């Protein structure tokens, strides 16, 4: 798993780990936008550069075993990685690919990842990550999911 350091063009290795109680103390709304403590009952993961404690992305996942599906409840990159002046490229892609890996890991060929998109953002998730429109949900499974896993080297 890698991200691109935009200004230098260097490709850097990243890691994704479960969040700890200690991490919650450092996760501020001013940097990660949402109140992440509200996600404690779900599976929250952090993305950081290898051997670096600074979190550059967060994702909250909910396993829906009865439907063999993982729902992305929430995702945010750190403040310095938003917009035109962002430092790294690929944080969101890595986090979504991680959810795809988890879905395959748990549910095999039936695995699926879904999210509820904001209307204005819907087409971007479809174009950039291969999500499919099912109405309220966007979802990804099978080939587009395999491609995400391959692209982000999980």
């Amino acid at each position, binding site marked *: 798993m890698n991200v691109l350091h935009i200004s230098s063009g260097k490709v850097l290795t990243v890691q994704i780990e479960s969040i700890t109680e200690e991490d919650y103390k450092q996760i501020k709304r001013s940097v990660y936008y949402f109140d992440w403590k509200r996600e404690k009952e779900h599976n929250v993961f952090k993305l950081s550069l290898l051997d670096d404690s600074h979190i550059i992305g967060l994702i909250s996942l909910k396993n829906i075993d009865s439907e063999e599906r993982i729902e992305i409840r929430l995702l945010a*990159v750190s403040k310095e990685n938003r917009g035109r002046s962002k430092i790294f490229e690929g944080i969101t892609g890595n986090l979504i690919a991680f959810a795809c*890996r988890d879905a*395959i890991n748990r549910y095999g060929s039936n695995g*699926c990842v879904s999210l*509820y998109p904001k209307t204005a*953002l819907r087409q971007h998730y479809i174009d950039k990550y291969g999500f499919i429109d099912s*109405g309220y949900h966007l979802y990804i499974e*099978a080939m587009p999911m*395999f491609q995400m896993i391959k692209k982000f080297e999980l």
Partner: protein
Amino acid sequence: MSIKKLTKKYTSEELADAFIFRSTLSPEEEVIAAEQLKLARLKSRENLTDNQRLYANVLQLRFMIEDYLKSNQFNQELSFGNILRKYIALNYKINKKFASDIQLDETELSQLLNNKRMPSEKTIVRLEIHSNNLIPAVSWYKLVEKQHEHLLSTDQQLRDQQAVFVKNKLSLL
């Protein structure tokens, strides 16, 4: 910063590149959403080929191996022999055919599956090639290594047998 302010500061593409927001659907809408998704997935699954299903299942096995190798625990269920058995079952009804496909003696395969012998490097590389590089040789090798480590650290009989060959043991506290 409210979502309104965010949308003023960033383009929708930049927002999609930075966030997935919480659902704001009502419970009624969520029921409809779940039904829509179920129907869409049913259609998608009809188009899933045997090849794609196999690819997903081999990937699942690879992830199982990777996660197991990261853990500090030894698990007999995930020994080399048992993982190989799972791998073969993904695409073969009989082991004999698999043995023939990687040119392995049937008896040797049986011993590998029953953890009665460990695979050679050649066999491990053939497994990688057979999986179309989806499960790397290094993963198979590390499975074997983990099994060796466990045996070495728990084999009391071997210790008892070898103790008679050791003289002048270090006298330590």
